[in-house]
Every structure is written in C-alpha cells, then in structure tokens.
C-alpha cells in the first residue's frame, strides 16, 4: 500500500513537472505573442521596482516577502493564464479545423454544382443540335415539297397557257374588232374633251390679248410655246416665231401670263396633251 502510494506520488510528481514544463513553454509562447505595448508596461513596472529599491533599504525584507507573495501570485496568475491560453488555443484549433472542414465541404459542393452545370450545358447543346438537325430535315422536306408543288404548278400553268393560247387564237378576230371599237370610242371622247379645253384656253388667252393700234394692217403673226404645270399655271413661255414687231410679241407674251392659270383637264392622261401649247397669235 505504501509502495503503491509512493508510486502514485512519483507519477504525480512526474506529471507536475511535466505540467510545469508545459507552463514554461506556454509562457515563453505567451511572451512571444505579447504585444509591444504590454512589454513596455512591464518595463515600466520594472522601473518602479528599481525606483522602489532606490527609495528604501529598510523595507527590503518586507518587500522581498511581498515580492515572493507577488511572485507566487504572478505564478498562479501565469498558470491560470496558461490554462486559459491552452483552452483558447484548443478552441482556435477546433475552429480552424471546423473552418477547414466547412471549406472542404463548400469546395466539394461547388465542384458538384459545376459538374452539374456542365452536364446541363452538354444536355442543352445536345438538344439544340438535335433541334437543328430536325429543322434541317424539315426544311429539306419543305423544299422537296415546294419543288414538287412548283413542278405541279408549272405543269398546270403550261396546260392553262396552252388552253389560253388556244382560246385566244379562237377569239382573236372578235377581240380585235371589239378593241378597235373601244379605242375608237375612247379616242373620239378624248378628242372631244381636248377640243373643249382648246376652246377654253383660246378664249382665256384671247380675252387678255390687247390688239396693237395698227392691228391687221400688216397681217403679222407671232407664235409662243407655252409650258404648263398640272394646274394650268404658265411655267415658261418661249417666242418660237417672232412677228418681227417686238410690241406685238410682248402683248402676246403678256396675254399668256395674264391668262395663267389656263383651264386644263384634271385627268392626268388628258392633261398630258396640254403640257406644251403652241399658240399662234394672228394679228388680223
């Protein structure tokens, strides 16, 4: 039993020494991570200690006791801090471990997602390819169909054409006669309309033409080429056959401009005949 106890005591001592070693290591670690500010503070404390030493020799023993007590307290404090640090370190290690695990899980997840997206893209491309192939196929089919239809239509047209030609050949004489009759009627009607407007224009210009004082004595004549706008406005007048008497020419020119706008047909086909008028003024 006593042996067992001593053995236990030995273990205990061993472990305490071990713990103390750990403490020193941890303390040195702590000293390393102490920020420079704390370090400066400690230096200042050391200065106070030095000052205290310089102030009094009498209280030395008391101070030594106090210092020992303080050292003990500091040791205890250091030990406490070491414990806390160990605990914090363990906690930090655990956190890091956890973060690493989380990161690995995330990476795995991203990888899985990317793979999934790639798979989808591939699937989509495959679908598109398939659709394109289908479209090409459809188009080819449509072209073929159209070609067949065109061929059929051509055949029909050819048949119709042949029939039309035959019919035209049969009705040619009758049609020609009919067209001639219509044309003659149109021409007559057109002529009548044109003659009517020629009469109106003649009146309009004549009413503005002031005779020369010696009108009719020399049988003079002057010819004006008149260019008309669609509303009958006189655009330009050229004397294309002078009478030799400038005053007569001028009075004719004045008459044309004074008569503007001239009465002209509104129908464009009829008016086409009135774009240019060649008016001869006879001074009779």
């Amino acid at each position, binding site marked *: 039993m006593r042996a067992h106890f001593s053995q236990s005591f030995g273990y205990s001592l061993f472990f305490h020494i071990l713990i103390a070693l750990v403490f020193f290591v941890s303390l040195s670690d702590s000293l390393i991570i102490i920020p420079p500010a704390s370090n400066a503070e400690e230096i200042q404390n050391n200065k106070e200690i030095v000052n205290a030493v310089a102030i009094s020799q009498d209280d030395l023993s008391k101070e030594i006791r106090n210092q020992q007590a303080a050292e003990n307290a500091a040791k205890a404090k250091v030990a406490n801090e070491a414990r806390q640090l160990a605990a914090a370190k363990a906690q930090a290690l655990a956190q890091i471990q956890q973060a690493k695990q989380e990161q690995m899980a995330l990476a795995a997840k991203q990888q899985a997602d990317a793979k999934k997206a790639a798979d989808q893209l591939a699937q989509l491309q495959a679908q598109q390819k398939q659709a394109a192939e289908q479209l090409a196929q459809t188009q080819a089919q449509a072209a073929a169909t159209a070609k067949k239809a065109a061929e059929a239509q051509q055949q029909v047209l050819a048949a119709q054409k042949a029939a039309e030609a035959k019919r035209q050949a049969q009705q040619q004489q009758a049609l020609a006669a009919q067209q001639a009759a219509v044309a003659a009627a149109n*021409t007559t009607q*057109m*002529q009548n309309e*044109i*003659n009517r407007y*020629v009469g109106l*224009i*003649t009146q309009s*210009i*004549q*009413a*503005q*033409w*002031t*005779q*020369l*004082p*010696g*009108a009719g*004595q020399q049988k003079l004549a002057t010819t004006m*080429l008149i260019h008309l706008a669609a509303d009958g*406005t*006189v*655009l*330009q007048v*050229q004397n*294309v056959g002078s009478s030799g*008497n*400038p*005053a*007569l020419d*001028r*009075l004719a*020119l*004045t*008459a044309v*401009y*004074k008569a*503007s706008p001239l009465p002209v047909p509104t129908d464009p*086909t009829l008016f*086409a*005949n*009135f*774009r*240019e*008028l*060649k*008016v*001869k*003024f*006879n*001074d*009779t």
Partner: protein
Amino acid sequence: MKKYIPLLFGDTRSIVGVGLRACPKRATTIGSCPYVRMRSLKYSIWVLIMGLMTFFTTPASAALDIEITRGVVRSIPIAIVPFDVNNPNNPNDIARIISNDLNHSGQFQVMPQSRLPQQPHDADAVSADLWKTLGLDDLVIGSATLTDNGQTKADMTLLDLFHSNQSTPTVLMRQSYTVANSQTRALAHHISDIIYEKLTGEKGVFSTRLAYVTVEPLPNNPRHKRYSLMISDVDGHNAKPLLTSTQPIMSPDWSPDGRSVAYVSFETKLPQIFTSDVATGQRRLISSFAGINGAPSFSPDSRSLAVALSMGRTNPNIYIIDLGSGRLTQLTDDAAINTEPSWAPDGQSLLFTSDRGGAPQIYSIDLAGRQVHRVTYLGAYNASAMYLPGSSTKISLLHRDDRGFNIAIYDLQSGTMQTLTQGGYIESPSPAPNGRMIVYSTNVGGRRMLGMVSSNGQVNIRLPEVSGDAQAPAWSPY
C-alpha cells in the same frame, strides 16, 4: 434629239384633229420608253442633259397647236409713278405730263395718281405681284433732280410686269437725260414718245405740234377781232402765234417736212395763200388769183400745193401749184364746188370734196389719167377727207348723220363708215402722223374749242389750254 422629249413631258400620244403631232411610239410613256432603262449612270446623265438642251433650245414636236385670230381692242393699262423730284426750280410735273400724253393717245389707260398703292422710285423696290393685282401691264418710275450747274437730270425706267412669271418686274427700257429746266416739258413729251413706241410698236406723236387759228375780240375795240395763227405743243401748251391779223386766217396745213405752214389769209380783205416758215416766220405768197384761193394742201414731197381756185368764177376747182416753178395745173374743170384737196400717201391721186352729185361727197382723182370717181355714198354730207397716215385704205372725214356733224373713219376696201364722235358741231378733222388720233374743232357752249378723238373711238378729249375761239386745227408731221 427630239426623241428624248417624251421623257420630260410624259404621255404625248398623237391626237388627230387638234393638231397634235405624233411622237415616236416607242417612247410614249416613261414606263415603256426604252431610253429610261439605262445601263449606266453616265448614260442617264447624258440623256438628261440632252433632254434639257432640247427643252431649252428647240420647240418640241409634241405641243398642242392653238390659233388665236383676234385680240381685244383695249387700252394698255399702265401706271406712271410721280418722279422723285429734287428740283425746286422746275414747275413741271414730268409724270403728270407723261400720264396726260399716254391717256390722251387712246392706246393707254393710265392709273390715276390717287389710286397708286405705292410710289417707288427704284426698280428693285417694285413688287410685280402688287401691281399685277391692280390689273396693270407696265409701270414707269423715275426721278428728276437739279444738277450742280442748274440743269434738270431725269431718269426714267419702264417696267414690264408680265414678262415672266417672276415676282420681279422686267426692265424694258432705262433712259437718263440732262436738260435745261425750260426743256423739261419737251423732255416729258419725248419720254411719252419712247414709252409709246416701246409698247405699241409705232412712233408716238407727243413731240409733234398743232397749228390752229384763234379768234379773239380786240381789247381796245371789241367790235373787231384778232385772228392768230398759233403753233403749240400737241397738248395745247406752249402756244405761240406765227401770224396775227385783224382779218380772217383759214385752213392751215403743215408741210411734210414740218418746216412751214400753208394757210389762207384775208389780210387784204381778199383770200390769198401764203406759206410761213415756222422757225423764222418768213412768209411767201403762193396764190393770189381772182376769186377764191383756198384749202392749200402740201404734196407728200413738199414740192407742190394742191389748192382750190375759182379763177374769177363762182365755183372753185382743184389745181396744183408747183412751189419751185410756180406752174399751175388744173385737175377739175366743172361747174360744181370742188374743194378740200388732200393727197394720197403715194402722191398719185387726190381726194377732194364736191357737190357735183347734189350734196357734198368725197371724190378721188388720179393725177395721171384725171379719172374722177366717187368715194363716199353713205350719208347726205361727207367732207374734209384726209388719208389716215400709215394707211392707204382708211380716210378720216366729216360725216353728217342724224346726230349732226361728226368725225368718221371710212374704209375704202370694206366701204364701212365708223363714226368716232357723237356730239355734232364738229369741223376740220386732221389726223395725227401715226393715224391714231384726230384733232378737230367743236362748238362747246357757243365757243369753239379743240378736241381730239382716237381713231378707235375709245378716247375723246378737249384741249382746255387754248384761249379764245380755236378753229381749223392741223396736226404737224413727226
């Protein structure tokens, strides 16, 4: 080149019966015209240029032919804008004188100054559209300013409002003159002349003169009269006596060269025929035979006078006096009254008045064969015949019908008589050298005055400037 015309003017199909000429069938419409389907831009531009050249240089073959056979007898509407006057020494209103001249000519209708919408003095300031809407054809603007050496500088511009369809007028004539202040009236008449000639194609008569006889009571002896042979401007202004007498003066007639006037003077109580030089007043006695010496008429060559002489008998006959040699040639020899001889323009025959048919009528005699034929049959009285200058077929005469004595134009070819006046009481018609006006004397309220009527009958005016009784007017040559 003409084949391109349809490109510019479209459908130009041939229409039979109204004179439209055919165009190439292949180019009848723009759509079917082969010249529209061009192979290159270069070619198209070339065709366009050729087409435009044709448009502006040659008559197109496709124009519709229209013929107008007669214009309207109408006065040309014109406005004479008062001149921009900067001459306090010049009392003559040039624009007003021109206005009167043109108005009295019968060929113009001058817008009254009160109706002028504007009074521009610069051609650039004239809006043709404004004046066109007032119905005017032409516009005269100008200025009259005093020069440094005391003369009058006049500028005149004649504007044609209808020379184009543009709103800017066309300058037909632009003249500038510098004259003595005393000549501004003559200058105004000259401007009237050139305007008239520019617009009517014949010479104006506004610088010609009149000879006529005035009769006034003598101031100190009202029972006696003073007769004056007067020479004046054609508007009656500027009248000066060539001869004054207490005895009647009758029948003045101008020599064709305008230098002298022949007339009958009773200054010796008996009728004698004289000529007077208009410039110098120098007189020459031509005829002083027994009895009647009357109705002198210068031949077209100014070398002889046709006269009516009674040679001691009761009735006058027609003679010709050679002014160079004094040789006398008798043309008629009968017992009727033969008087008022007047030469044909060619100098080969004479018109005269004779009552050989019972009443005064116009007869003609040719100098070579002495053949006489009666000219007028219409009416019971025709006298004082003269050929209208510029015409060999129309004569002016004094014609009596139920409205009294009036001036008429008788057409030798058609035999028609056109009466120009209606008032009656007219004497002594004498046509202007361009034949467009006839001056006469007429009775207005018991006083004889001069008047003028246009030979188209459109204008009939009085000459109020003449004082006293005025009679026997004769219009000078140019």
